[in-house]
């Protein structure tokens, strides 16, 4: 017996090439965030906290680590009897083998999976956004409006609206028009890429779409406009709160810094809406006798005996005596050796900054450190 009759599908196929070396070995949703998390922990924890039991994760690019990670359903409590996280890469069928050709195609190729659970509604999510959201409230909105599809929207500054897919709505927040990156935006309601669909209606639309040779097989470009043209009821669901797409090194750094400077917006200390992740078997953090720590976000397993300010330290980071870390994001098991100074950098995991080295600049772009820096 499921708590609600909705299956979630997370699109986690992104190559994330603007994250450079961080995504050489892992898909973007598996990139680290916030001292101990991976980006995909956010939609998965939101699902768990919203009472969703069945989650499909659509992966494509180099996904062994991502697949292995999300397969540990118990991390999000999604291992109860009728619950589960199911990794859905492209697969060989009698009719042959094909990669996912677009966001909609990824769902089309897994219609059999969704049919198996026979849900009333399907929730489509992206695997690379940072936010906390109760999808059960969005579902209430969907049901109360008897909508065919509901799209979560965020109010953005009007001047930035042309960077987004913009929803134009009537007085009841029913969507009357959708414009992808409009030059002259008529509204400031940006699509967050979070959709609830009536499954029967979506299923039909997907089967039509797959036959259309001109389609990009994309939700934003094809399915949503198709629903609108077909006169179906699309509802906007207004979300208020922190939401970020961490697609670049700068935005990844910035969103980590938001934990220090905008912690009232992205509050990870709220016990009523925890973000779950893999717990690493390490002791609590040791802040040594020579340490100076201020304005920092530090995870268990760290050993700090130097100076840390305005920085986020992930699991197992070591800052040796006399080292200085400022305005930086140090991914798991980064070691800053004695006397080294780092500023405005973001490291890959398991990076060592050698003794007495200075890395980073007081301003300009954030430096991604993906290779060890030799010391004196």
């Amino acid at each position: 017996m499921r708590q609600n009759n909705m299956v979630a599908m997370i699109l986690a196929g992104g190559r994330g090439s603007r994250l450079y070396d961080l995504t050489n070995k892992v898909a973007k949703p598996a990139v680290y965030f916030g001292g101990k998390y991976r980006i995909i922990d956010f939609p998965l924890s939101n699902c768990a906290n919203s009472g969703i039991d069945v989650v499909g994760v659509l992966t494509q690019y180099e996904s062994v680590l991502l697949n292995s990670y999300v397969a540990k359903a118990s991390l999000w409590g999604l291992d109860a009897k009728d619950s589960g996280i199911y990794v859905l890469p492209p697969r060989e069928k009698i009719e042959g083998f094909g990669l996912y050709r677009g966001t909609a195609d990824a769902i089309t190729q897994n219609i059999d999976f969704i049919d198996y659970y026979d849900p009333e509604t399907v929730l489509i999510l992206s695997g690379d956004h940072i936010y906390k959201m109760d999808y059960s409230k969005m579902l209430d909105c969907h049901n109360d409006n008897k909508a065919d599809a509901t799209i979560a929207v965020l109010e953005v500054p009007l001047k930035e609206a042309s960077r987004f897919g913009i929803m134009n709505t009537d007085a009841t927040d029913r969507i009357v028009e959708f414009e992808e990156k409009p030059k002259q935006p008529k509204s400031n309601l940006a699509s967050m890429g979070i959709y609830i669909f009536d499954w029967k209606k979506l299923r039909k639309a997907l089967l039509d779409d797959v036959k259309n040779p001109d389609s990009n097989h994309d939700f934003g470009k094809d399915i949503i406009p198709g629903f609108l043209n077909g006169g179906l009821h699309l509802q906007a669901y207004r979300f208020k709160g922190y939401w970020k797409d961490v697609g670049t090194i700068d935005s990844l750094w910035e969103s980590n810094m938001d934990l220090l400077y905008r912690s009232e917006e992205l509050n990870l200390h709220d016990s009523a809406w925890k973000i779950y992740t893999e717990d690493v078997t390490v002791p609590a953090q040791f802040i040594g006798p020579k340490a100076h720590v201020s304005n920092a976000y530090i995870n268990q397993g760290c050993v700090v005996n130097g100076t840390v300010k305005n920085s986020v330290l992930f699991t197992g980071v070591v800052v040796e005596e006399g080292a200085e870390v400022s305005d930086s994001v140090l991914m798991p098991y980064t070691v800053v050796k004695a006397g080294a100074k780092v500023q405005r950098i973001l490291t890959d995991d398991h990076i060592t900054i050698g003794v007495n080295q200075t890395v980073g600049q007081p301003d300009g772009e954030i430096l991604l450190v993906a290779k060890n820096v030799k010391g004196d």
Partner: protein
Amino acid sequence: MINTLGIVSYDDFVEIPGLTDTRPVPSISFMGRYRLIDFVLSNMTNSGISNIQIYLKNKPRSVIEHVGTGRHYNINSKSGKLRILTGEVNAQAEVYHHDVSAYMANMQYIEDAHQEYVVIAPSYMIYKFDFNEALLAHKENKADVTVLYKTVDNADTSFARIDTLTIDKPRRVVAIDKNQGKFKNRHISLSSYIMSKEVFIHLVYLAHETSSLYTLRDILKDQLPLMNVMAYPVKGYVASINTMPEYYKVSMELTDYEMAKELFNPQWPIHTRTNDSAPTQYATEADVSGSVIANHCQIAGTVKHSVIGRDVVIGKGAVIEDSVILANVEVAENAVLKHVVVDKFARIVHKNELVGTPDRIIYVKRKDVI
């Protein structure tokens, strides 16, 4: 070592007024994120033991929730088993509740275990050890019982009332006595035993028949002249958390990373249950040094040479020194705490100064508002 049943023994011997009022010994918080039982369970599962029985006298809730099915200790829930067992519940006098009466009450589960050997170890002894090592020696020595021990030079100030061993060559145990703190150099018993299941059951029945007050340790002491009881030395850090001064002292000394490294070895992980807590947030005004800090704290004050548990909030201007703060405690702005042990969910909001001394630790009760 899969041919061994693990038994986490009754801790009726331990009394830490305050800490043990509301929880059994295995559930006592330790070093920010652990409970005492994590160490013995990790030693067992890291040694490959997958069938474990935990004996409890009462208040099982916190242990049930903490150990769960044992999956976070790496016990396979199908081919392995983690059992929580309690003693007799009949309203008898407290004195009849001890390890042997608990084993007698659950003898069927001991007999049903198909393992050939038994490791019995308490949760209040903190050490890291591969039981395979001692089992190998046990077999080679053709011992009836093997007792783990550590030779220390601080028995006058530590390990109060813990058993000491008198060891003959070649490591045969010839006497077991309580440490009265008279001597520095002693072989401290870790109260951890290895024996065949057959010998274990024999000893339990023998103790039970001898006196209804007899414990396993008592019968073993009696049997020293009759059985081949061997001692096996444990290397590395060893501590006993059986009194409040010991609890405090051990917590303080493990804030030294060089000492803690002996216990927290990545090759021998100490497993525990996660609380899904966020990292700890240090405010701009924070000043922290010489301390062990658990996750999910929000620290805006000064913390020196202290152990801070999970989800502790320390206000601006507050000063915490030489103290142990358990989880979910709130320390208001400008409060000053020195030589204090604060139990869970306590709130220091009204009183500004709580200052003890190294010899007179102040203890603040669970849920107290001060």
